[in-house]
């Protein structure tokens, strides 16, 4: 059986992720997405993964959500966000989502992981020291590549959002 915390966080997370996609104003959607990510961090805390939960809050709620909100404010105008979703596409999307939910859910429900004996929550939670050790020994090349990827992505995003080149191009077109 699930406990009350789990039910509360589940309703919060799934509800806000639906609001993120369906809200009229894009800015409310961005805030709902941030709350949904906070809910995921709550799940991580329920799973005794404190470090991942804090990382999630720092990166997603702290950085990604703020970045998205800034972009929404930069791009915001009155009539640009009234893009209509056509009805048939919406029905198709809902059917596809339900088929995915039912199909993958059925596969997991008939698989062995519903057995309470699968995995044991009674074992000690994973220590942060173990995460750090494996990150700095076996996975250290991946960590370095990750740092380079992040640097490349940030430089690339800055180069993309630069203004001068674009203005010159527009002038030459005119």
């Amino acid at each position, binding site marked *: 059986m699930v*406990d009350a915390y789990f039910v509360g966080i589940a309703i919060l997370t799934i509800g806000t992720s639906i609001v993120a996609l369906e809200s009229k104003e*894009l800015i409310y959607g961005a805030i709902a997405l941030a709350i949904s990510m906070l809910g995921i961090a709550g*799940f991580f805390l329920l*799973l*005794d993964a404190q470090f991942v939960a804090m990382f999630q809050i720092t990166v997603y709620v702290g950085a990604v959500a703020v970045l998205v909100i800034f972009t929404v404010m930069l791009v915001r105008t009155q009539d640009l966000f009234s893009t209509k979703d056509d009805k048939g*596409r919406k029905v198709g999307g809902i059917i596809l989502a339900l088929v*995915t939910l039912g199909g993958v*859910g059925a596969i997991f429900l008939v698989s062995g992981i519903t057995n309470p004996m699968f995995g044991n929550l009674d074992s000690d939670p994973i220590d942060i020291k173990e995460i750090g050790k494996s990150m700095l020994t076996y*996975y250290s090349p991946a960590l370095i590549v990750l740092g380079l990827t992040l640097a490349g992505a940030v430089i690339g995003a800055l180069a993309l959002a630069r203004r001068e080149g*674009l203005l010159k191009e527009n002038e030459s077109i005119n």
Partner: protein
Amino acid sequence: MNQLIDFVIISIALFSIGIYGLVVKRNAIRMIFSIEIIANAANLNLVAFSRHVHNVEGQVFALFSIAIAAAEVAVALGIIIIAYRLYKQIDVHEFRSLKG
């Protein structure tokens, strides 16, 4: 006590919400939201299995995945701002310059 299957079901639900958003929405920023929701569902699955199988790798991969997702969002939002400047809108159906 929460079982593994409960977390997996929440993860599948978030995944299908993300699939719905990717299929239906035409606004580029909403599609980014959908991708983020799907990435979060995958991370939840990784950490849930890591806890129940008692394996460090799940959490390490989740950390890597979160960092990669942050980089991806930065680039995607840069592209959206550029596209908005060029086309004056963020409806993906209007971005048709590459269409043959």
